[in-house]
C-alpha cells in the first residue's frame, strides 16, 4: 500500500505546505512589488476606505447584490460552504484531533455539512452550466475557468460519496473513494496559490488598492 501511504502521509504535508507557503509568498510578492511599483497605494492609504470596501464586499451589502440578486447570493453561499464544510466537518476534526497537533474546535452538525455539500455541488453545476450556456460568460471564459470549478467541486463530491458510500455498489470501495477524496483535496490545496484560486487572499489586496484609489476621490466603494 505504498500509494496509500504516500497520499495519506507525505502528500498531505506537501499539499498543506504548498498551500500555506505559497499563499504567504503570494502576499509577500504583492507587498514587495507594490512597495516598489505601486507607491500611490501607500501615499494615499486611508484605512477607513480599506475596511469599508472589504466589509462591503465580504458581506452582501454591495452594488452587485442589487444588480444581480440571483447570482450574487449564490456566490456568497458557495463561498461560505466552500470554507465552512472542510474546516468544520466532524470527520476532519477527528483527524486533526488524532494528529500530532491534537487540535480541536467546534464542529458543524453532520446534517448541516451534508446539506451544505449538496448546495455547493448544485451551485457548482449552475456555475459550470452558466459558463457553457450564457453567450456572455462563454466568450470571456477560458479553459481553466471550467477546470477550476471542477477542481473545487471534486473534493466535495468525493467527500459526499465517501461518507455516504454512494458508489460502493459499482466498485468504489471505501478505501478507493478515500484515496480519491484525499487526492482531490490535495490537488485543490496545491492549486490555490498557483492559479487564480489565489483570489482567496489577493482579493483583500486588490480590493484594498481600489478602495484607496476611489477613497482618495472622497468616497468609499
Amino acid at each position, binding site marked *: 500500500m505504498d500509494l496509500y501511504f504516500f497520499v495519506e502521509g507525505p502528500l498531505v504535508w506537501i499539499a498543506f505546505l504548498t498551500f500555506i507557503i505559497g499563499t504567504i509568498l503570494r502576499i509577500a510578492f504583492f507587498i514587495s512589488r*507594490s512597495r516598489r511599483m505601486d507607491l500611490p497605494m501607500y501615499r494615499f492609504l486611508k484605512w477607513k476606505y480599506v475596511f469599508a470596501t472589504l466589509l462591503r464586499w465580504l458581506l452582501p451589502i454591495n452594488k452587485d447584490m442589487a444588480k444581480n440578486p440571483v*447570482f450574487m447570493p449564490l456566490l456568497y453561499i458557495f463561498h461560505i460552504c466552500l470554507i465552512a464544510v472542510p474546516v468544520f466537518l466532524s470527520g476532519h476534526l477527528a483527524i486533526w484531533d488524532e494528529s500530532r497537533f491534537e487540535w480541536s474546535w467546534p464542529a458543524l452538525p453532520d446534517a448541516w455539512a451534508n446539506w451544505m455539500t449538496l448546495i455547493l455541488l448544485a451551485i457548482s453545476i449552475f456555475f459550470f452550466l452558466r459558463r457553457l450556456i450564457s453567450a456572455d460568460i462563454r466568450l*470571456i471564459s477560458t479553459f481553466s475557468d471550467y477546470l477550476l470549478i471542477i477542481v473545487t467541486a471534486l473534493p466535495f463530491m468525493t467527500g459526499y460519496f465517501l461518507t455516504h458510500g454512494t458508489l460502493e455498489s459499482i466498485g468504489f470501495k471505501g478505501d478507493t473513494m478515500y484515496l480519491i477524496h484525499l487526492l482531490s483535496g490535495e490537488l485543490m490545496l496545491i492549486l490555490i496559490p498557483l492559479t487564480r484560486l489565489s483570489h482567496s487572499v489577493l482579493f483583500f489586496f*486588490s480590493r484594498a488598492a*481600489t478602495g484607496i484609489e476611489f477613497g482618495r476621490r472622497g468616497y468609499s466603494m
Partner: protein
Amino acid sequence: MTAPINAQAVMDFLKPRMGARFKTWVNICTHCGMCADTCHFYLANNKNPKMIPSYKVRFLKDILKKKGRVDRAYLEEIYKTVYYECNVCRRCSLYCPFGIDIAYLIYVLRALLNSQGLAPEGLARTVLDYKEFGNQMAITDEEWLETLEWCKEETADELVGLDIPIDKKGAKILYTVNAREPKFYPQDIMEMAKIFHVAGEDWTFPSRKGWDATNLAMFMSDTETAREVASNTFKRAEELEVKQIVVTECGHAYRSLCYEAPLWLGYTPKQPVVHSVELFLDYLKEGRIKLREKLKEPTTVQDPCNIIRNGGLAEKNRLLASMVSEDFRPMKNQGNYNFCCGGGGGAMPMGGEMKKHRLASGKIKAEQIRETGAKIVLVPCHNCIDQIRDLITEYKIDAKAVHFKEVIAEHMVIPKEMTPKED
C-alpha cells in the same frame, strides 16, 4: 500583410508598468461577468458579449503570455477596442467584486499603443499643440489676451466695474478654462467674469501657458506630456501666489489637475484645485450669489465621470442642480454610479472616427434623460455637453443642455451699483 512589432520594445514598455496591482488584476479575474451590464457600450449594442469590460482587457494577459510577440494588425485590433469601445469612465471598476480597476488596464493598453506610435489623430495632434502653445487649440498668447480683452469689452456695458484681471499677483483664485472657450465659446468666459464680479471674487487669469486646464494627453496615457501640461498651470499658480486653482465646467481638466497631477508630479501641489460646481455651490450657500428665480422647467443633471466617479463631487453636483431648479429630477443611478454619456475618455476630440461609436453608445444616456422628462440638462463638463447636444439631436429628445454658469449668470441678482444706468 502585417508588419511585425519589436517584441522586446513591447515588453520593455510593459514590464516596468506591471506593478503588483496590474499583475494581480490580470491574473485573478475569474471571468464572472459582473462587469458586463455595467458598461454602456455593452448595453447600447444589444448586449454584445464583445463589449464586456473584462473581455476588452484580455489583450494585456495575452501580450504578456506571448512575450510581446504580436503584430501590427493585433495592435490595431486593440486600438479599436480601447478607443472605439471604451470611454474609460471606470463604471465597471466599481462593480468588479475583486475591485479590478478595468479602466486602468485600458489605460495601460492605450499607453502601450502610444509607445508603438498608435494614437487617435485627434488626440495626438493636441500633444504637439500643448508642447508648442501650452493649449490644445494652438492659440497664441496674443490671441488669448486679445480674446480676453474682447470679452471684457463685450461684457463691460452689462455690469458696471466688470474686469477680467490678468496676472494679478496674490489673487485668491487662478481661473483656468478649456481652450474651447476662447476658441468657440467666449460666452463661457464672459458668464464666468460676470459671476466672479457679482460675487466680489478676487480672481485672475494667467497670461501665459497654463490657462488651458484640459489635458487630452491623459486620454492617450502620454504621461510625460500630461505632466508637462498640468505643471504649466501649477507654475502660474506658484508665480502669481494664488490660494487656489478654479477649473471651468470641464471634467477631465479638473480630474487631471486635482487627482492625476499629484501622481504625475510625484508630490501634491499646495494649491487646492476647485471645480466650478464646488465654487458655485459655495457662492449660493454663502449668499454671495443670489438667484432672482430658479429654473421653472424640469431639469436633470449629468454626472460627468471625471468630476463625479473620478472627482468625488457627486453630492455637490446634485445639490447645486437642485438649488438652481424648481423641479429637479435626478436620473436613475444619479451620482457615482451614473452612466457615461459616451463622450468621455477622449471620444469627443477624436472627431469623425469616433462619432458613430459615441452616438451609438450614448443611447443609454439619451434614454436616461428622456426618462426624467427634463427639459433642461445641466452639464458641468465640456465633453459631456457636446455629446449630450449631439444625443439630443440624434435621439430627438425635447430638451436642451446647458452649463451651470449660463444658468447662474442669467438668473443671478445683479446688485444695484453694478446695474448700468439707462440713458
